[in-house]
């Protein structure tokens, strides 16, 4: 899906639990998600904690969408916008 949408000229951010698979299939902008059982949350953190995770991930994804890139890029914690 990521590749087909990009083929239509629309940039895509892939929020991915397993980053190597996103890289293998050819996603260009990748934001690592939390993990396979709960990609965009963490039940141990409660509602407020989960909301914060989601907000952080969405904001990171939006920033990634507006960031020019030269090749496949993983926007993880170490990435400096």
């Amino acid at each position, binding site marked *: 899906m990521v590749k087909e949408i990009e083929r239509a000229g629309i940039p895509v951010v892939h929020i991915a639990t*397993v980053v190597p698979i996103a890289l293998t299939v050819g996603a260009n902008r990748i934001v690592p998600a939390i993990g396979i059982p709960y990609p965009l949350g963490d039940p141990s953190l409660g509602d407020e904690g989960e909301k914060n995770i989601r907000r952080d991930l969405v904001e990171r994804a939006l920033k990634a969408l507006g960031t020019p890139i030269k090749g496949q890029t993983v926007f993880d914690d170490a990435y400096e916008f």
Partner: protein
Amino acid sequence: MKLEIGNIFIKDVQLGQETMINEGLLTINPELLAAKILEDERIKSARVELAKPGESVRITPVKDVMEPRVKVFGKGTVFPGVAANKVEQVGEGRTHVLKGTAVMTVGKIVGFQEGIVDMSGIGAEYTPFSKTLNICLVLEPMEGVETHAYETAAREAGLKVTQIIGEVGRNMTPDEVISYEHHPIPHLAAAYPHLPKIGYVCMLQSQGLLHDTYVYGVDAKKIIPTLMSPTEFMDGAVVSGNCVASCDKIPTYLHQNDPLIEDLYSKHGKELNFMGVIITNENVFMADKERSSDGVAKLAKMMGLDGVIISEEGYGNPDTDLMMNCRKVEAQGIKTVLVTDEFPGKDGKSESLTDAVKEADAVVSCGQGNLVITMPPMERLIGTLEDIETMIGGYEGSLKKDGSIEAEIQIIISATSAIGGNKLAARMY
């Protein structure tokens, strides 16, 4: 470490009063075994049924398969650390095996991730457990017991009964005794300096949510990669707790009889130098995948290996663990061969694996799980057909009016399990 495996060839099995072996005929007492299972308050009913090779019998839903064994000399018991067994190092001494038999736990746990064993017809061709004399434990949970608690109960019931049956072999004289030795690493390295030093990386299913494997009773998702003697597997140190797609399930039986360990031993000192087994897991968080694959590569290097064989259980995200292990081991200058199975879709047009790296240039395929076959109706059913159409490999319309089943071979226990043990393979043309 030296382990003698004493095989007692069992030619037939029957139900009776006394549990005994007489000239290859195993007799078991079904009431006694059922009573033992029902000591667990989580289990409502337990019934023992037999299924033999060639019979018109369908067994489903099958959860696990185990081989009856008993430790005769040496420390510990089989299945250490689980089902109320003490945790004690195994893999040395002597173990007797009721060769030709298997214990199967049957009955719905999650339904969609249990499978079928047919004892005859085309379906029987795809599973190693159509060739064993099967002692089936048909179980039902008590109302209100949570699925994960019942999975534990069913797993423990299977292990307990397998041990009780194995016990009958304690004082028998085996028909054959095979000796397996595992020497300290420096001795091994010195013994065959001209042969390549080969290790086996055994990836254990540990995704959680009933996709678990236990090592000396430890949930494998909590381990970091470690070194094992191959003989520990033969004594049941690794136990399946899995509800995964049936075809690539590695039941406890296949851990006890790991075909890769068997083959590596058979070539040891001749074509290669078998240095030992590294176990690792397949967890669902990237940090775990990174840590575990780092650990595998580190151990392979510390062992001074020239090459490793890496097996896998399951498919999908574990393909990434397989590839990360491959890439990181190769980065140490150690060659890898991967053993896996494939899921290219019914039309064969999809990618066979979810992930791939360029270092993965030597891969053994144990077949593809999307092949559709039609299994003929069977005269006798052990278990229930209720879940056929929702099992992985099944679909709406799979169960025909005449009792035949059209489904992908994913639905058959261990049809493509990625440590071998089945007949499927792939060839390049």
